[in-house]
């Protein structure tokens, strides 16, 4: 079976982001960018399914600026077979992204599409569910375990209070949670080989998808700063302050 894995280029998770002075977004010029951590887990899961002989081909897809190519090369170095880049700037919203992925899925015919559960920039947690709706496929979100069993895939999901296992008829959508696996590092020879793997470039117009945003961002502001930093000398002093000053115990 073929697996499609959409990946997103985001501000690296270690970067302390700064809100732009014009309040229209956060500073991204000169900031380190990486593959969204949940998407690395998605690529890893696809590669493991190929190593087990379940998958035969892995196609990775990214939607964003031309530099998203780097993110795709990383996925190819991890073990994906070929890549598709849809250039669009600024990054389209999850609904538009889902429509673009749907168009690619209709051309490629994958049995499983694996996505990260959320991108750490917009924190939306929406693309996989929206894509599943548009394709009318079942969804296994927040997956911590994936097992293909014949015509079904069993997905163990992280829910409030524990775990739930669902069985989905293929083709299906899976979104990854952190504990699904530990992504591998791409070895240098694989990074070299990845440069030669095929990468096709498209635009939203090629796929006849309207990516006009539905949400207008009026303002991006910094959250209120906490007045932290007060130190106490002992446990007794701490309890005293919590009782008399903070009045929380």
């Amino acid at each position, binding site marked *: 079976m073929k697996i499609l894995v959409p990946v997103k280029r985001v501000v690296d998770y270690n970067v302390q982001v700064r809100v732009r002075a014009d309040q229209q977004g956060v500073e991204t010029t000169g900031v380190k960018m990486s593959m969204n951590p949940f998407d690395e887990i998605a690529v890893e899961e696809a590669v493991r399914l190929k190593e087990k002989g379940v998958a035969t081909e892995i196609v990775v897809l990214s939607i964003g600026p031309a530099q998203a190519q780097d993110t795709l090369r990383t996925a190819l170095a991890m073990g994906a077979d070929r890549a598709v880049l849809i250039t669009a700037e600024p990054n389209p919203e999850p609904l538009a992204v889902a429509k673009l992925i749907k168009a690619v899925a209709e051309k490629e015919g994958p049995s499983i599409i694996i996505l990260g559960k959320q991108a750490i920039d917009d924190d939306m947690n929406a693309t996989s569910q929206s894509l599943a709706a548009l394709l009318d496929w079942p969804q296994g979100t927040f997956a911590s375990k994936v097992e293909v069993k014949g015509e079904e895939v069993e997905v163990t999901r992280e829910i409030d209070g524990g775990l739930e296992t669902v069985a989905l008829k293929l083709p299906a959508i899976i979104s990854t949670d952190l504990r699904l696996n530990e992504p591998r590092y791409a070895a240098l020879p694989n990074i070299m080989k990845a440069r030669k793997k095929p990468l096709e470039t498209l635009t939203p117009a090629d796929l006849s998808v309207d990516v006009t945003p539905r*949400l207008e961002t009026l303002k991006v502001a910094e959250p209120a700063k906490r007045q932290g930093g*007060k130190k106490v000398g002992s446990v007794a002093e701490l309890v005293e*302050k919590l009782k008399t000053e903070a009045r929380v115990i």
Partner: protein
Amino acid sequence: MTALVFIEHENGAIRQPSRSAIAALAKLGDVHVLLAGTDLSAAATAAASIAGVAKVLTAEDAVLADNLAEPLAALLTALAGDYSHVAAAATAAGKNALPRAAALLDAQVISDIVGVEGADTFIRPIYAGNALATVKSKDPVRVLTVRAAAFPPAEPTGGSASTEAAPAAALDAAKAAAAKSRHVSYEIHKSERPELSAARVVVSGGRGMAASENFKLLEPIADKLGAAIGASRAAVDSGFVPNDRQVGQTGTIVAPELYIAIGISGAIQHLAGMKDSKVIVAINKDEEAPIFQVADYGLVADLFKAVPELDAELAKA
């Protein structure tokens, strides 16, 4: 302007995050709530008495018993035509079903709102809570998930809503959508303590706890304070506690009155899940730990000495 809020029930009671979602939407107008599953009579009575609820819709069918996204999103979509807003708490179930329903309605979901500025304008955190975006929706139906920690829950009493069954056509849509997925099993972690997302006090341990059995040290403190026990991702990844204890960007987001972080360095990912707590206490032996920058009260100490002392001090009261 009327909103439809999907609410979750457990043993005949309405979960607290759902009451917060009701409170958030009540700012805009009438609220109708949707209950789905089986054996709904006790939950329907509970829902009808929540302050601010004008009508309770019940969708009673076995396909809806496990909050599977496919039937639930189809049900919400079938009912959405009568409403200006469709919403749910940003719980595992809400985050699973609402974006699916939104796409079926050709709308862009607005996830995890923390503020309501108007009928079409909402505030939501981005970049792990390091920025707050105010967004205005151009969609005719606004589909939202609500961060429970940001809105005090609607009172469980004081309301007197009418109850009616959801139209048969909506139930048929849910049944038709249930063909491709099925629930297999649950593995629920039992806990006698308050629910993490709803607790007034949360005591959390991190990598500094060093081992799973050391989390027992936190139990007497949690008992004395009536607290839930949480953990950092590092503690979960090290296998000290199950992942449903995790507080952070990828776990549960909490905003209790008192949050006590023990042996937690304070990575961005963790802060995203707790920095709206009213009072934050940090106990850490590394005085440079970033957690001290957000802590109202910090104690630089070895937790294995400080935690038993804290228990003894609390026992004095």
